[in-house]
């Protein structure tokens, strides 16, 4: 199989691969006799059309109503103090959606690792093993269960798709497409995982701040544990990605 960074004279996308055709194409920059030039404009109309739609658009959706009296009582007290538990609930649902997607992402990376290791274990970092990846995957699944419990404690519905959870689904589509593509390498898949871990890390930091504002110390403590684990995920994934890329570049 041709490595993706090998020079194989097959990539046809750039101008330089088409010396004759590109010369003819570039003539159009000067104008072609008998063919009308494009209409002139400053490109504002594009932004204006988009702005008009933004102005009249509705939000993606709204937050579901609290489902338990205990949660309502607790939320209600915070509402009276001006706190916004709905923001915390929305962000918890976002985290839940992301952790579920992250679990599936790592299942995909496990497949990639197995496939590349069978082809050749050369260049694969020593600590990038099935055991470690499975541990990360299992921790993502535990994080999902953690936030689900917290949502229930706050009187929310953990099965609801909130606006932020919806958004995460859209954002994650590209990450899933990358990892599930048989043509992507382990390094390329880890690039997708790196993007996920960076988002995840900041997401947990924000959850901690929100929980602190709500004055929920037990929740803050559990979130800090999750953040520590996510920090380790980020460190490892970043390291693996760098090592694989530098190895591929003949630098490592």
């Amino acid at each position, binding site marked *: 199989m041709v490595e993706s960074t090998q020079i194989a004279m097959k990539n046809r996308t750039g101008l330089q691969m088409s010396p004759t055709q590109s010369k003819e194409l570039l003539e159009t920059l000067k104008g072609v006799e008998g063919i009308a030039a494009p209409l002139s404009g400053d490109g504002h109309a594009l932004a204006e059309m988009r702005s008009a739609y933004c102005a*009249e*658009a*509705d*939000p*993606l*959706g*709204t937050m579901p109503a609290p489902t338990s009296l205990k949660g309502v009582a607790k939320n209600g007290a915070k509402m009276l103090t001006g706190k916004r538990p709905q923001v915390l609930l929305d962000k918890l649902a976002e985290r*839940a*959606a992301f952790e*579920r*997607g*992250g*679990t*599936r992402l790592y299942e995909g990376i496990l497949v990639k690792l197995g496939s590349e290791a069978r082809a050749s274990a050369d260049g694969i970092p020593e600590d990038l093993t099935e055991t470690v990846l499975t541990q990360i995957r299992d921790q993502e*699944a535990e994080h*999902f*269960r953690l936030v*689900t*419990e917290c949502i229930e404690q706050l009187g929310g519905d*953990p*099965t*609801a*798709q*909130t*606006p932020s959870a*919806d*958004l995460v*689904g*859209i954002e*994650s*589509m590209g990450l*899933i*497409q*990358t990892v*599930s*593509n*048989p043509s*992507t390498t382990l390094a390329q898949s880890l690039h997708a995982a790196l993007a996920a871990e960076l988002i995840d890390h900041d997401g947990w930091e924000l959850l901690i701040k929100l929980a602190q504002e709500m004055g929920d110390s037990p929740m803050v403590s559990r979130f800090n544990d999750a953040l520590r684990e996510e920090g380790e995920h980020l460190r490892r994934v970043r390291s693996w990605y760098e090592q694989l890329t530098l190895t591929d570049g003949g630098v490592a």
Partner: protein
Amino acid sequence: MALQLFDGKGTPLEHQRFTWRELVQKPISKLDDDAFTRVRIILMNGIESEAVRFQHLAARMSAPLRESLARIRRIEHHQETQVNWLLGADHSPLETTIGYEQVAVEVTAAIARTEPDPYVAQALRFAMLEDFDHLYRYSALMDRLTGMDPNNILQCYTDILPGRPTSVEHRSPENDLCEPWDKVKVQPLTKLHTLTLVSGEQQTHDYYMHYGPSFADPVARQVYAEIASIEEQHVTHYESLLDPSLSLLEQWLLHEANEAYNYYGCVQQESNPRIKAIWERMLDYEIGHFHHVAELLKHHEGRDPQEIFPDPLPDPFPYASNRDFVRKVLVDEVSMRKNGTRFVPLAEESQASIDYREHMSSQGSPTEIVACDYRWLPGTELNRKAAGF
């Protein structure tokens, strides 16, 4: 109140037009709008798509009708655009697919419950159990590929359970055919029901063919390939119910009546007032089309359109969960198979179908693979520990 096709004239053709801005409106909310609003949008997109497709086919076979076909087809196309574009971009292809199968299950079930012809009703129930299984397989795919919960789309209206397994739905082509009804003896409602399902299955087939290759995951690509093949079978299945001796103009009139009938059902039951106003506009346009085609029928065939639609149309089917009906049909009929145009017990299935599917699945069945041990749980399979399973 029943729809009276001959009471009003609808919107005149020369007033049926849109601007681009009108065609591309605010989409519905995936989170806040009722699932049946999405069901109606998907169904009516299919109905309009069928209108455009039929009117292209008709134009290949009739020179005198070409100008009328071109005029009305342009309007149908723009109607299709306005309707289909009501689905927001936060609907991923897989989420939309779940929506499509919900349409297939709930609309087919609703229609089967009121279908007056017993053979046609059987044909409806038969295919419904297959679409029900597709919903289960796509749900497994959604959970296992993306970690998302298909019930966020279904909103608890539709069960997620195995139906007649997709792997046994593959039949040799002659066994997808049904006995056509007789245009003189059959009730008008049966004609409308048949055309509604032909439309729905064709658009579902086209959607899977269009989006299947957009997935990077090889399991997803194979699942879409396998289920798209069944949808092609379903188009054959329903289409073969149509009386082939229907004239082109009678078919066209039937199409316009069916569009009006279905838009009427949407108007009556739509919960979103903004979308309801769209259905009202569309209904008026279709009544306008109906009367234009009715005049063509009088002129070219010397026939009275009221002989084809003598009475007010029946009440449209309800947009509501058909859970109990689907479960009963599942228990009673999941083992049914086809032998030619007959619906038969398992032991009497055509050997040609068995041979065909054994070859197609000789390198594995993607729908079996994707859903191995899959059981829907609230919040996905990853909630299994929390749910005590």
